[in-house]
């Protein structure tokens, strides 16, 4: 009694091939038997009917015979050509050669050819239409057959409940089957029983389903493939449990579930971060914070213009402010590299291979730079020999690689980020000054980046402190992540700063960040001598608001005429000034702090 929906409909005899007159219009209706229903005569196949159908078509008869050419076709063509020629000649004579002649004959022929083409196209269109009609008829017959076959799979009398009740049961069955598929073939009750089993999984001959152990190992391998560090608590827990000879099914299952949840969380966080970083890279801040944009002349003015633009969003304004010192450092680095190039060009132009060799040896000149100075191969070879005289450890290939690495855009960006923090008057100093302006006021803890961005827009020393915090967090994030930064690493920096509320603790936080960044910087410079030359020590440079690039650090000795005991003080965002001792309290009230 099993019923099935036919997987493939049987091919009705004759439906898989065209009828004997498929290529030509059917004329069968003209010779079709009389309407049997009306006449009441027995039909073909019925008792009493003729043994053969009333009409037959000889198999293999050609669908249509090509039309025979008319008699004397050649003669007719000659006569037609002659008459066309005569007509054209007459026209030419009557119009004194303006019309007629060969051109008219040609026109006549073209016109005749076009008419023939139109006739052929019309014939073809008619054939196409006939073919379409035949196809439609055959398809309808097929669909009618399919409908009949589909109906044949149904019970004669069918109720709605026949489909619905079974459907619900099937859904339950599918749910049960899915559970079993995901739990090593165990039914829910069997699975619960296994979880209660206290027999260690690794015990010989235990009755525990191997699913628990296999799934745990599989999830751990997946975590390792996804580069989740072994120090991650979930990974560590699962590793420990799997290594424990007394681990039960429940313990392994719990650890596996925890690991899976951790993986899901990390995947979601990565996805969210990627989306955010993509959006940031395409925004105003993203475009202005590329290494090229920061090092471009006028970058600070462009950033300032965006800050002043009332259409710029609050969040972008605070992040744009942090770009100002970065632009200053990036421009200094660019100018430094440009100055190196100019100096080297001059030395090479005016000097000898010996001079160039000395520059190569002290790493003032890279081999790539030398090659770009339009010197001869002999000059280069002589310079390298000379360099090895000055420094026997000089190796051309190694030096070239070091030089190329030092000048890479990635390093240019990295040192831009570190130096905007470390340079005198940079973001770390700005933060220190902002904290000092607050005195003993406690900074309300703002532990969410978005809230900090909102709080940083405003006036007063507290807003300045928040803005400075944000600037440091942004630079720190870029340094630590080695790239464009992310909100996760910004939040890390914020965590360092926000939890320290006393003035001493604030200083400690700043020092902690300074040490971390300096360490990153020193690590990057390493033993590459070119980096030391291209990216000089930032502590010897001064970031001055409103001025392009950085300048040499301001002398700490007061100029002539400044009263003794005066201090160099600065209001956040303003110029440093020497303040006489009697005016220091008033300046402090305005938020000025001593420049370190």
């Amino acid at each position, binding site marked *: *009694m099993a019923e099935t929906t036919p997987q493939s409909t049987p091919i009705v005899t004759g439906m898989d091939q065209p009828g004997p007159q498929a290529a030509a219009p059917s004329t069968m209706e003209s010779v079709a038997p009389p309407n049997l229903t009306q006449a009441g005569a027995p039909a073909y196949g019925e008792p009493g009917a003729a043994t053969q159908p009333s009409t037959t078509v000889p198999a293999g008869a050609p669908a249509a015979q090509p039309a025979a050419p008319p008699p004397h076709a050649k003669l007719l063509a000659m006569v037609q050509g002659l008459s066309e020629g005569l007509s054209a000649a007459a026209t030419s004579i009557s119009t004194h050669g303006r019309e007629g002649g060969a051109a008219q004959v040609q026109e006549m022929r073209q016109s005749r050819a076009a008419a023939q083409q139109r006739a052929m196209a019309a014939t073809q269109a008619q054939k196409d239409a006939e073919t379409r009609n035949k196809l439609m008829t055959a398809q309808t*017959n097929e669909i009618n057959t399919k409908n009949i076959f589909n109906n044949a799979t149904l019970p004669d009398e*069918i109720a709605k409940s026949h489909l619905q009740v079974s459907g619900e049961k099937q859904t339950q069955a599918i749910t049960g089957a899915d559970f079993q598929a995901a739990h090593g073939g165990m039914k829910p009750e069997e699975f619960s029983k296994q979880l209660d089993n206290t027999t260690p999984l690794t015990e010989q001959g235990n009755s525990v389903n191997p699913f628990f152990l296999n799934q745990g190992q599989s999830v751990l391998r997946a975590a390792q493939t996804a580069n989740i560090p072994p120090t991650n608590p979930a990974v560590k827990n699962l590793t420990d449990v799997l290594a424990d000879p007394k681990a039960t099914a429940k313990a392994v299952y719990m650890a596996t579930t925890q690991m899976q949840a951790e993986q899901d969380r990390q995947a979601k966080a990565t996805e969210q971060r990627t989306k955010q970083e993509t959006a940031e890279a395409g925004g105003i801040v993203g475009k202005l914070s590329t290494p090229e944009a920061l090092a471009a002349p006028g970058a600070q003015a462009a950033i300032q213009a965006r800050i002043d633009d009332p259409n710029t969003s609050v969040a972008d304004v605070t992040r744009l402010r942090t770009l100002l010192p970065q632009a200053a450092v990036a421009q200094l680095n660019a100018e430094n590299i440009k100055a190196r190039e100019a100096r080297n060009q001059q030395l090479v132009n005016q000097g000898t291979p010996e001079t160039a060799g000395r520059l190569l040896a002290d790493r003032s000149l890279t081999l790539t730079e030398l090659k770009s100075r339009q010197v001869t191969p002999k000059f280069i070879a002589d310079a390298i020999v000379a360099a090895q005289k000055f420094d026997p450890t000089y190796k051309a290939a190694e030096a070239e690689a070091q030089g190329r690495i030092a000048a890479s855009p990635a390093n240019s960006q990295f040192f831009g980020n570190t130096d905007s923090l470390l340079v005198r008057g940079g973001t770390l100093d700005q933060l220190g000054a902002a904290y000092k302006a607050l005195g003993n006021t406690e900074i309300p803890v703002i532990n969410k980046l978005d809230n900090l961005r909102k709080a940083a827009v405003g006036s007063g020393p507290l807003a300045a402190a928040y803005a400075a915090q944000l600037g440091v967090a942004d630079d720190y994030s870029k340094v630590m992540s080695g790239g464009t930064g992310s909100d996760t690493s910004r939040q890390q920096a914020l965590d360092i700063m926000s939890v320290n509320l006393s003035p001493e603790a604030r200083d400690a936080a700043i020092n902690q960040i300074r040490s971390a960044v300096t360490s990153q910087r020193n690590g990057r410079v390493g033993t590459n001598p070119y980096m030391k030359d291209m990216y000089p020590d930032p502590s010897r440079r001064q970031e001055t608001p409103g001025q392009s690039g950085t300048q040499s650090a301001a002398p700490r000795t007061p100029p002539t005429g400044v009263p003794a005991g005066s201090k160099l003080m600065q209001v956040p965002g303003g110029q440093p000034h020497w303040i006489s001792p009697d005016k220091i309290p008033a300046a402090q009230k305005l938020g000025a702090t001593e420049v370190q």
Partner: protein
Amino acid sequence: MPETVNLKKSYSALNEKIAKLYDESGVRRSFTVPYVEGQPMADHVAAVGQAAQQNGGLTANLVTSAHHSDGKGWGSGDGHTVGHPAEKLRQTIIPKDDERAKAAIDAAQKHINGLKFLLGDDEPTVQTAQGQLNLVKPTSGAGMNLFDLGVLLINIMHTPTQAVARAHSGTKPGGHSPNRRAPVQEEAQGGQETQETAQGGAEAPGEAPTAAQAAPGAPAAPEQAQG
């Protein structure tokens, strides 16, 4: 509202009305192949193919198959498959207020009502079929040619009929997506009803089961072709 519907019967009635429309509109049949009591469906289909081939083939004739509602009726061997010349059907226009065309459209509506009853009014395939039928209902097909109306009434039934067959098949172990189900044995253990019960015992006592029900793949008797 009836408890059950008989789709085989309503579809057979639709075919009968279409054939009647063609006959009484003056289009001569190309061929008529009657059902034969006890004849397997495959033999009947072969006979239809042969008759069609001798009359221009299945590309030149529109085929309908039905039981005689005024004879022994549906479920018997009293029926036939007829072919009408497609070209002649195309040339014949349905006049205004044609009762035969109205009867064919009404038969189509009745079949769709049965499909709606089983699948629900919001089933997309049924909605589409009803929408297409609604296009011809106001005019009863007046102005259309016989071929186009017949093709419409047959074609619009295809997807909802398929949906019903599929839904019904889905209730059986050998139906669609068998890999997504729990083992058959477990279903039986779970107290699922038997196949006979699932079909509701709708067949009248003494009625022969359909060929498809009797054995998958076995040819069906002609009377079951239209159910």
